[in-house]
């Protein structure tokens, strides 16, 4: 009996704690959006601008890009937009006839939308890239993985910046 009560109390405390954490996260997200969403009347950092869509089309044509297999490690808020650390990794194989041929990096709101392309070979044993990029403003950052079979996989993340880092 006592055990049951203490257990239910514990689970209540846990769920209450989670609810508070969720509220705090929500508030933080909203605050970030109002502070760093630069132009109130212009497109938000979350919308893919036409220029970025054009870059996708130039590189990949009408080929479908599917969600998944790409893990993208980026800060939520970049303290220095001149040096935003980014780590791209995939669980896709690096076998001689089935490998990750390329990793493409796109920043929707940068002057050069296509930031970098990395052509890889099975000799690497794994597919990942760790680097540092510049960001002009808050934007979606996208990593696209192209396999030797021609499949495209992607992942994206919204990064808030404070200053123009395109110097």
């Amino acid at each position, binding site marked *: 009996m006592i055990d049951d009560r203490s257990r239910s109390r514990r689970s209540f405390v846990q769920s209450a704690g989670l609810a508070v954490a969720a509220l705090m996260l929500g508030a933080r997200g909203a605050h970030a959006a109002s502070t760093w969403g630069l132009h109130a009347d212009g497109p938000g950092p979350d919308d893919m601008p036409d220029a970025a869509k054009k870059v996708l089309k130039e590189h990949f044509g009408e080929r479908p890009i599917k969600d998944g297999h790409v893990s993208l490690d980026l800060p939520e808020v970049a303290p220095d937009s001149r040096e935003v650390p980014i780590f791209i990794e995939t669980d896709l194989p690096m076998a001689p006839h089935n490998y990750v041929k390329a990793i493409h990096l796109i920043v929707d709101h940068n002057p050069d939308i296509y930031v970098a392309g990395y052509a890889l070979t099975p000799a*690497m044993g794994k597919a990942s890239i760790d680097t540092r990029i*510049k960001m002009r403003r808050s934007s979606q950052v996208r990593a696209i993985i192209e396999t030797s079979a021609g499949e495209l996989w992607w992942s994206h993340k919204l990064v808030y910046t404070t200053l123009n880092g395109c110097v």
Partner: protein
Amino acid sequence: MASIPATGDARILLPSQITKDAVIYVRALVAHPMYTGMSRDEHGKLIPEFYIKNVDVTYGGERVARFEWTSGISRDPYVAFPLRATREGPLTITWTDNEGSVYTQTATIAFHA
């Protein structure tokens, strides 16, 4: 006193101990301003675009990776990538900028006894 690195000074960092057939992470740094062509100097004059465009990675004479960069890569570019250490031999990285300057650095992959 350590000297200030000049444009093109490059370093390759390998793990201190490498075992055969292990996937290692190669870290590479090159000193380069990576100007976008959008910033100005102290006199208000635009600084022309000046950035690393291509990076070639060869291992024992065989090309294992090739990177295509823009000025959206940060100043003094850093990159880390995996490599399966299948044999002992030189690992060479060549950086080429948009003005055609070529910077090269080589590290030797040797197995731990």
